[in-house]
Structures are given as structure tokens and as C-alpha cells.
């Protein structure tokens, strides 16, 4: 069946008529203007970060600097220690993803294939947490993390990241969709459950994991409230978003805008390079 991917509401016939053309041109103009508006804040930050502070304070609209001040970016790298905060962000992201994917995979596989006695109760208990967004209980969660001594430790971020009922549900649905015969065959060969999971189920699930890793990376890069609470006083452990917010007022505005630009580049690059997977994630329902 041909679907409407290669056409819209307008047909190629419509586009040959004047009114069809007018509609089409209006659409193009609208979308181009909107695209410019959408990326404008980023362009503003990029170019303002290349100005001198005097030039930035000048009134009137002058989007582009007379002479680009590339040394602003050098200042950002030296004084704000960008490599360090980027490394911290990666440490947090990798730890969170490892925890989340390992724990969720084991749980999902068990619920889908091993089905130990009582699995239904656990399943319902997992799924109940989808109904209550985490923001509704972050105060007692914070108290638990304090009492467990996880404040100012990356474990305070890594361990709670293992709690994600949606990922468990997604993986369980996937493992449910695999034919039982696949697993029986491996079992007859004498493979242990862990072995079957590793060499039969996981390879088939690769596309899902790629999507989960990309969205997980973008999510870690974006998260602010929880790292800010957990790593409150450990400034040398702060990820990008917390460190960026801490800059306020101690640096001139042009330097700060340069820093904002630098902080936005890695996730933008990842999104642009992996847009194919992000869209596939959308069809799996991950976003």
C-alpha cells in the first residue's frame, strides 16, 4: 500500500495550479521563518559569546561581532574547566545507563521468560511507579539518599537511575515478542539463563538498546535538579548543567554566553548525528 509519505494533502496536480502554488509558497515561507526563530536563541548565544563585553552592552540589534573574540572560548575552557565538567557529565551518563540497562534487562528477561512464582505481583508493583511521576516523591527520595550516605557521591545518581519501569516494560514487551522455541533450543543445548539472555535475546534487541543509550545520554546531559541536590557541595563533581548555573554573576555576560554555547554543542551534535535512531525510538515510543 502506498502511503502519504511521498505526498501531502496537496497533489502534484494542485501544485501546477496557481492557488496550489500560492499555498505551497506560503507554507515554505512559514516553515523557513519558524526554523530561523527556533534556532535563533542558539545563534544569539553563539555570536554574543564572540563579542567583547563592551560590544555586547551596546544598544541596537547587532547580531554579529565586528571582530570575533575567539579568546572568549579559551577563557571558558581554562577558567570554567570545561573538560572537567564534560568528563563529569560523561561519568554520570555512563554510570546511569549501565545501571539502568543492566538492572532493567535482568528484570525484564525474568518477567518475560523465567516467570518465577509471584512475578505478576512484582510486575504490577513496577508498573504502579509509572503512574506517579518522580517529582511527586523527590523529597522522601532525597531523604533516603541522605540516610544511605550517598550525598556528594556519584552513587546517589547511579543507583536511582536503575529505577525505570518504562524501560522494563519496553524490554519485557520485546522479549515477549520473541518465539519461545528460540529459548527452548538454547535450553536443550544446556545454556544457563544468563547465557541465553546474553547470546540469544540481547543480540536481537540491539536496535532498542541503541535508542535507549542515545536518549539516556541526552537525558543525563539535560538533568539538573537531581544532580544539583545530590552533588550539592562537591563542586568538582558537578555535571555541565549544574556547573553552568553556578557561573551566574561571577563572569562577564559575554563569557557566560560563550560557555552556554559550548555546553549546548555536544547534545546538539549527538542529536544531529543520530537523528535516524531518535526517530526509530519514536516509533518504539521512546522520547
Amino acid at each position, binding site marked *: 500500500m502506498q502511503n502519504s509519505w511521498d505526498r501531502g494533502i496537496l497533489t502534484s496536480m494542485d501544485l501546477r495550479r496557481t492557488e496550489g502554488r500560492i499555498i505551497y509558497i506560503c507554507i515554505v515561507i512559514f516553515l523557513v521563518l519558524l526554523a530561523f526563530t527556533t534556532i535563533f536563541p542558539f545563534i544569539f548565544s553563539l555570536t554574543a559569546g564572540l563579542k567583547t563585553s563592551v560590544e555586547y552592552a551596546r544598544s541596537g*540589534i547587532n547580531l554579529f561581532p565586528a571582530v570575533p573574540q575567539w579568546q572568549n572560548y579559551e577563557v571558558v575552557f581554562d577558567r570554567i574547566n570545561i573538560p572537567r565538567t564534560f568528563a563529569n557529565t560523561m561519568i554520570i551518563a555512563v554510570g546511569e545507563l549501565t545501571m539502568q540497562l543492566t538492572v532493567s534487562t535482568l528484570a525484564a528477561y525474568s518477567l518475560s521468560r523465567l516467570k518465577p512464582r509471584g512475578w505478576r505481583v512484582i510486575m504490577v508493583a513496577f508498573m504502579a511507579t509509572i503512574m506517579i511521576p518522580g517529582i511527586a516523591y523527590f523529597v522522601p527520595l532525597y*531523604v*533516603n539518599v541522605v540516610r544511605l550516605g550517598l550525598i556528594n557521591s556519584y552513587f546517589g545518581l547511579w*543507583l536511582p537511575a536503575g529505577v525505570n519501569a518504562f524501560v522494563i*516494560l519496553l524490554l519485557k514487551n*520485546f522479549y515477549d515478542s520473541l518465539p519461545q522455541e*528460540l529459548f527452548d533450543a538454547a535450553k536443550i543445548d544446556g545454556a544457563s539463563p544468563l547465557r541465553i539472555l546474553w547470546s540469544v535475546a540481547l543480540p536481537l534487541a540491539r536496535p532498542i538498546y541503541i535508542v535507549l543509550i542515545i536518549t539516556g545520554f541526552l537525558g543525563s546531559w539535560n538533568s539538573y535538579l537531581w544532580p544539583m541536590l545530590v552533588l550539592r557541595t562537591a563542586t568538582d563533581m558537578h555535571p555541565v548543567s549544574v556547573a553552568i*548555573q553556578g557561573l551566574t554573576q561571577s563572569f562577564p555576560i559575554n563569557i557566560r554566553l560563550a560557555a552556554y554555547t559550548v555546553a549546548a554543542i555536544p547534545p546538539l551534535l549527538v542529536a544531529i548525528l543520530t*537523528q535516524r535512531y531518535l526517530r526509530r525510538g*519514536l516509533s518504539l515510543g521512546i522520547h
Partner: protein
Amino acid sequence: VLGSLITFGKGKDFMGTVAQKRLRTRSLGVRLSKDTRWQRDIAGWLFLLPAVILFFLFAWHPIVQGVIYSFQNVKLQGETTWIGLRNYERMLADPVFGQTWLNAIQFTLISITIGFLSPIIVAVCVNEMRVAKGFFRLVYFLPSVIPGVVSLLIWREIYSANNGILNEALKLLGAPPQLWLQNPALVKFSLVIIMTWGGFGGSVLVYLAALQDIPAELYEASEIDGADPFARLWYMTLPHLRPLMTVLLILQILGMMQVFMEPYILTNGGPVNSTMTPVLAIYTRAFTNADYGLASAWSVTLMLVLLVISIVYFAVNRANERKRS
């Protein structure tokens, strides 16, 4: 996360065929003996154990504990004591309580006005493009991957009252400059603009995926009947998007009940509490005043509101799926 549940069934068929290819036929009809059933229980529970421990510590226990805290005077160091309904009495006596929920409702209404139809319009337009479809799809999505804090700090400079670029542009057009973040009549609107900017691209992607599911035959049939493009839009395209619209509307409401970052970074709830949201109020009670019991009473209220919206969401989602099948 809730949004993620919309369409996750779709991946199944494609995966199923991959698996089928690797299928070995010799093992049909294996029966498990009692012994292996027992072994499987042990393996199954061992596999579940890490998740159960983490869910207990970081989800189930805090959810229950939050309700208990709301009846207590909570001390991180020292003795926590039961105080009955006093936290709830203090919460209801606080004029800020009514104000935060009023703000949440106003945020929701403004956000629906600005942000509900716009992704539909944009998606329909992008779907009409004969070239550069992929470019537009990507560009609109980009704001949602920039870390929220970074976006907000950039927007603060754009909205800046003295020589911010937005006021400079107004000056050029001969309009008076505005106090975007300091004027109580304007500030909610200013924040919703940022939220819409950051979020509409994701919704555009969701709507685009649905638009591409419309079979071309449907359009062709309507063309034979002589329907002009606007009639096609009104009678074919929009009805097709209807179920998705309901779902995204509920998710938008759910999101607006949880607004935190924008007022926290840009206005700290001001001016005169006009951007104080339920979550920001919880945050200040817990982490500025260390009044965890009071914060928990607020949290329980929020939890109930979110739970009701979630239940509506799942009910609607289920009804949609039943209609589809």
C-alpha cells in the same frame, strides 16, 4: 515517560520476523520437569533482585514514606515526631497554596492556547514539503536536546529588560520595551513561550509519524469526489489525528502541573508569587526551609493530582487502542 507508552507496540512485528529466521524447529514442545521449574524460580528471582532492591529504596519506599512524612515533623538529624494533620492545616492556611494551583491552571491554559495547535499546524505543513522535509523535522526538534538550564540562561539574556535583544527589536519597531520577566501580567506568557519553543518539535515528530500513516488512497478517493485541499485537511487529515491530539493534550496538562525549572531559574516564583508553581513551592519548603513534613503534605497533594491525570491518560489510551483494533 508516560508519553512513551503511546506507540511502543509497533516495534514488535519487525522484531518478530528477525527472530523467526533464527528459529530452530527441533525443540517444539519441550516440557519442563518439576525440578527445572524450581531452578527457574531461583534464577528468576535472582534476576529480579537488583531491580526489586532499587525500586524499594528509590521508588516504593519513598512513595509510602512521603505519605507518612506528611503527618510528621521530619528531622534529618534527631527525632521525627507524629503531628497528625498539622502539616495539612499549615498548607491550607498558606495563601500561597491556592495561588500555586491557580498558577498551574493559568500556565496550563496559556500553554494549551499557544502550544497545543501549533505542532499540528507545523506537522501538516512539514508533511506538505516536497524537499527538505528531513531538515525541518530536525531543526524544530533541536531545542529539546539543549540542556534545559542552558536554554533558560540564554532566554534570560534575550528577555533582559535593559538592552535585551527582544526589547531592542521592539524599540526598532517603535514599540515600548517590556519587563518580560518582571511584569506579573506578562511573566507566565514569557515562560510558556520558552516551554513551547523547547517542546513543540517533539510533538511535531509524533504528529508527522501519524500523518505518514494516512493511506494515499483515502486522499485520492476524496480528490475524485472533488474535495479541495482545505476540505481534505478538514475531513481526512484532522480526524485521523484526533486520537493523538487527545493523548498529547492530556500529556501537556500533566507536564504543566510539574513546571519547575523555568520559574526556578528565571523568576524564583516571582514577581509576587505569580510564577510560584506546586513543584517550586515543594522545593523551597524542603530545601530552603528544611521543612520536609510540610513539603510532603504538598507532595501528597501533587501526587493525587498527577495520579488522577495519569489514570485519565491510561483510560483514553486504552480506548484509542480498542478503537484501532
